[in-house]
């Protein structure tokens, strides 16, 4: 089933894979193959049709969706810009052909409230106007939102409560302990000291991490017995 879907997807006009790639003997040829594949991907996206309306839904928009869009604008921005966008959507709904499940009288009330600068009243009326339409919706699938009540954004942080102070205090403590330990466990030498030491040491031709022995971290420590 999965493979069938995958193959069907691969047979779309914008991507034809054709015959399997030939095995190349030389690295240069492999590199050419890589560039060819990248070119193919680029060409594929260049020749793809431009993206259109969201969700690819075409045809007549249902009336309740316009109302939801108006609610979405108001929820995102209850200021003049959001109100203007919501008014436009309400107007689209009122002049549209599909008003099934929408209480047009309530939408009219909402329009008046928006004009009067009372977005909260308009939101309530708009939400109530589509009660019938959203009650008949099937469970969401694909990219459907499943939204019935648009609602409001979650309120941001208020003043700090006891739990916030406790968690904040613990976090601050962790931060301080972490910084303290990081300083405590820091390498013994800074880069300048390390460079001076290494410049004064004749090269041995092997690398540091293969030896089980180590130099004293401070020259004053001196060789240990």
């Amino acid at each position, binding site marked *: 089933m999965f493979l069938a879907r995958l193959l069907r997807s691969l047979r779309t006009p914008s991507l034809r894979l054709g015959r399997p790639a030939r095995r190349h003997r030389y690295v240069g040829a492999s590199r050419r193959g890589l560039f060819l594949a990248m070119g193919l991907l680029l060409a594929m996206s260049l020749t793809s049709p431009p993206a259109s309306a969201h969700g690819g839904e075409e045809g007549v928009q249902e009336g309740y969706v316009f109302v939801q869009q108006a609610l979405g604008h108001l929820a995102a921005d209850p200021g003049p810009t959001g109100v203007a966008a919501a008014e436009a959507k309400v107007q689209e709904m009122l002049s549209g052909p599909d008003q099934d499940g929408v209480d047009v009288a309530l939408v009219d009330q909402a329009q008046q409230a928006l004009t009067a600068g009372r977005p909260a009243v308009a939101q309530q009326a708009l939400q109530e106007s589509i009660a019938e339409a959203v009650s008949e919706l099937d469970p969401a699938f694909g990219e459907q939102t499943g939204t019935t009540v*648009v609602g409001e954004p979650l309120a941001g942080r208020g003043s700090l409560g006891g739990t916030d102070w406790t968690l904040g205090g613990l976090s601050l403590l962790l931060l301080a302990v972490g910084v303290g330990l990081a300083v405590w466990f820091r390498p013994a030498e800074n*880069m300048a000291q*390390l460079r001076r030491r290494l410049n004064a040491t004749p090269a041995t031709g092997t690398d540091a*991490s293969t030896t089980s022995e180590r*130099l004293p971290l401070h020259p004053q420590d001196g060789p240990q017995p």
Partner: protein
Amino acid sequence: MTRVEERPVSSPPTRTRRALDVIDERLGIRALEYPVPEHGNKLAWSLGGVTAVSLLILIVTGVILVQFYNPVPEAANDSVRNLVTDVWGGGFVRGVHFWAAQAMYVTAALHMLRVFLTGSYKRPREANWLIGVAMFGLVTLALFTGTVLKWDQEGFEALGHNLEIGKLLGGVGFWFSPTFAENVPILVRLYSAHVVVIPGLILVLATLHALLVKKHKISPHPALPSEGSGEQAPAAEPTEPFTHHLRRISSFGLALLGGIGLLAVLLPPGLGARPVAGIEVTEPPLNFWWLYTLENWFGLNAIVYGEGVFFGLLVLIPFIDRNPERFWRRRPVAMALLVLFLAAVIVLTILLKFLTPEVHLG
């Protein structure tokens, strides 16, 4: 040069040491005590480890969050609200998860920047660079899917963009087609990707990444003399056991957790209203602003090209840059390109605030 043995032999083993010996006999934990050059314990050289700590925090908080999250479209937004408002500490855990994700993105980017600046992606470490690039791509995907999961207007618009990009990619974007599994909400599939597929792949690649670091050893510091071929730190450089490296990373990790906790308390992540189809009223998360500016200018295709160029360049770096020099002053072309690259991303990111947003979805 006089050398000393790493561990003094005179002191009698303590009770802790004896206990560790018992465990070591069974689990071989002493294998972790392999030597690491001293410069490997600097903060800049520990950023990969700090990124791993972020991943650990994300996994722990993620396990808690999935206990309360409902990925069904009708309930997803409400389940996040309930977590924040009704579950004790739920908002804090969500905040820690959110900020740990940001921290992972930033520390991974800084780690890659350090690797580039010190030429650590050069022979013989090219493959490990590619694994790192793949992990960075997965982190970006995790950020994207995490944004969608909260199922508010911002998340839904992010999904809308991705579905359109999936269409632009044709067959390559088949997974992002809502018709791929027609009866399953795409939110559920993104949820499975976010909690299983993406972290699973990151863990596999991170293991491979760590094993290759062990195999190739910590790359030499370009400001220090290196051994003959220039591929390894010199034998004269002091070393510390890897367990000390872990100890320092844990310290940084503790500090990171504290910082993240403070951010979670003071700047908790928001949650918008339930999503509505057909409008475009939100901005993407900061990490994607530069792409949003490109989209504003050139349309949705620009997101594909922008991401393609970004990751394409990262992949090609070790194949294009064959200069064995690692010190940044002796790599003027690479440094100039890096500055151009960073300047482009930063300018595009800032420009978003000065542009009138174009609607591409509605």
